[in-house]
């Protein structure tokens, strides 16, 4: 076996190795420490692309940990959908990390920055693992690593709000993983397998004999992933956690982490549970209505906020609900819309948090009402904020429109026009709270009151990359959409 056969495992392992080396290097050779994480991210990205090419030629790649074949061993699966998710996760992480290099120096104490790199690498590694793994218990372990490191990149700031927010997040996500593990026990009890593929086959038979176990497991999974991905009534931890964290952490948590759990729920629905389950009880309906409420209430809460980062955090609740809506509509172009939104929202929300980070870095302002006239002091930042807002609202020419378009089309195709109205209403609500900030920043007559520090070029460069991507994703959609359509046509 050559090295290239081990890529699926190496994508995860390389981050864990980097995580353990980085604090050591930070102590002895400070400059290499950040370079190490960046090179790990780039190497993983290269491996994902190499795997994508391989999957195009030879089909799905399965990797058996330690050579133990499933059902006993742990299996990693790399198909083009998972690789698409990995590509989004790792490239967005790389982008945020480059931004974090400068921003962290002003937000954190110097001695903890090395530890921040460790946590960051652990977070990215565990998320890659969640995407790749094909084994329920392995998923549980990776989810716990992800939960701890996600809480820790909030609490590393060590002020009161961060500590309280991350404690709340930790408790609720512990509840989520507890429910998840109980669901796994329910499925293991009736099948004796933990591997997704084996479970899917075995559950179809077991469903006739032990339907109650499988119903319970489905309910527990919805609670577990709903809590972790901040599906509407289970979102209570999100605003505090995402708003109080250092800006790169907020970008990471809002942009990438919550989507991973939505993806995991998607896998449970389509690759683990039997088709008969989705037909016999209205699981999709539940997700769909919660998502519809989420898009509206997320926006309504966001309108009431006076803190910029808190507003962005509440807006995430509305936006993650679009992804759940894609899962809930149970139609292939809805899934295309949902998964396109994973990519677009990952970039957009990360960029908006970066813009908020730049504003805080340069002027120290967090309140929305103090932002009047800031556009003249920080033009590039506020242009980025404008384009990000446009994508959130779904203005033509930005990526946000494409995902809403596919969701609306599929809602019409299956004869549920009410969800088109929900999408329209929530887009308008988004406009209500995003646009005043933009208008105030540029059109206000009076000058900006506070002094503004000059912003490092690398932070601005990150914002420019984000802007370009959002515009490109609004026009050049074909490759991603065809990739997604090929994948989802299997399920219908």
């Amino acid at each position: 076996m050559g090295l290239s056969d081990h890529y699926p495992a190496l994508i995860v392992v390389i981050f864990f190795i980097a995580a353990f080396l980085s604090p050591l290097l930070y102590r002895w050779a400070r400059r290499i420490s950040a370079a190490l994480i960046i090179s790990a991210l780039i190497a993983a990205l290269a491996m994902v692309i190499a795997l994508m090419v391989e999957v195009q030629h030879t089909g799905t790649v399965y990797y058996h940990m330690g050579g133990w074949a499933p059902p006993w061993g742990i299996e990693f699966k790399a198909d083009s959908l998972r690789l698409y998710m990995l590509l989004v996760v790792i490239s967005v992480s790389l982008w945020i990390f480059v931004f974090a290099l400068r921003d962290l120096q002003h937000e954190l104490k110097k001695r903890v920055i090395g530890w921040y790199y460790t946590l960051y690498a652990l977070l990215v590694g565990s998320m890659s693992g969640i995407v790749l793994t094909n084994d329920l218990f392995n998923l549980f372990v990776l989810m716990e690593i992800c939960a701890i490191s996600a809480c820790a990149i909030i609490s590393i700031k060590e002020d009161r709000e961060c500590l309280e927010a991350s404690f709340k997040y930790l408790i609720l996500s512990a509840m989520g993983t507890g429910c998840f593990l109980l669901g796994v026990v329910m499925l293991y009890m009736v099948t004796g397998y933990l591997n997704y593929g084996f479970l899917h086959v075995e559950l179809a038979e077991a469903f006739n004999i032990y339907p109650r176990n499988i119903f319970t497991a489905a309910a527990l999974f919805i609670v577990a992933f709903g809590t972790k991905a901040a599906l509407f009534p289970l979102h209570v931890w999100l605003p505090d956690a995402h708003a109080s964290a250092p800006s790169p952490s907020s970008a990471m948590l809002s942009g990438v982490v919550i989507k991973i759990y939505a993806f995991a729920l998607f896998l449970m629905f389509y690759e683990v549970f039997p088709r008969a389950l989705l037909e016999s009880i209205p699981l999709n309906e539940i997700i769909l209505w919660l998502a519809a409420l989420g898009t509206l209430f997320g926006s309504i809460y966001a309108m009431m906020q006076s803190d910029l980062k808190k507003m962005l955090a509440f807006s995430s609740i509305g936006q993650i609900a679009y992804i759940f809506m894609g899962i809930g509509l149970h139609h292939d172009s809805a899934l295309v819309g949902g998964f396109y939104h994973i990519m677009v929202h990952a970039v957009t929300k990360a960029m908006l948090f970066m813009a908020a980070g730049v504003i805080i870095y340069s002027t120290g302002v967090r309140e929305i009402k103090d932002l009047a006239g800031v556009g003249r002091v920080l033009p590039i930042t506020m242009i980025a904020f404008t384009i990000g807002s446009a994508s959130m609202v779904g203005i033509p020419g930005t990526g946000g429109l494409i995902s809403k378009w596919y969701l609306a089309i599929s809602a019409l195709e299956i004869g549920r026009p009410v969800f088109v109205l929900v999408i329209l209403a929530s887009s308008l609500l988004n406009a209500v709270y995003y646009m005043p900030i933009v208008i105030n920043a540029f059109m206000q007559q009076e000058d900006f009151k506070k002094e503004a520090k000059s912003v490092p070029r690398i932070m601005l460069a990150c914002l420019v990359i984000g802007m370009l991507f959002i515009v490109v994703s609004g026009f050049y959609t074909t490759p991603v959409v065809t990739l997604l359509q090929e994948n989802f046509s299997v399920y219908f």
Partner: protein
Amino acid sequence: MEILRGIVDNYYYMVAIILFVIGMYTMLTHSNMIKKVIAMNIMDASVFLMFVAVGYAHGSQAPIIREGAEVLYANPLPGALILTGIVVAVSVTAYALSLVVKIYRYYDTCDYDEICEIRSQE
């Protein structure tokens, strides 16, 4: 009657579920943070209990193979998985407790309601 019999025969599952509910209820409703952490552990332990119970069959022995003996072995896989689960639970507990310590240094209390009161007075 059939349901009742099912419950009596599988009492260990019932114990696990009752513990799970106690843990979850305490974790979400109590305002004391230490109690929340303890409840989190109760909840995790209940799931582990249930997982191990799944692997046991009546009259089975520990899965150590002895030559020539024809005995029923318990399923070793749940045990192996739970060992990992325990390690994970310990690390989450350690992290949660360290957060409680840090919060205590700021407020001189572990009680969430009191913290809310202190914050509202500021």
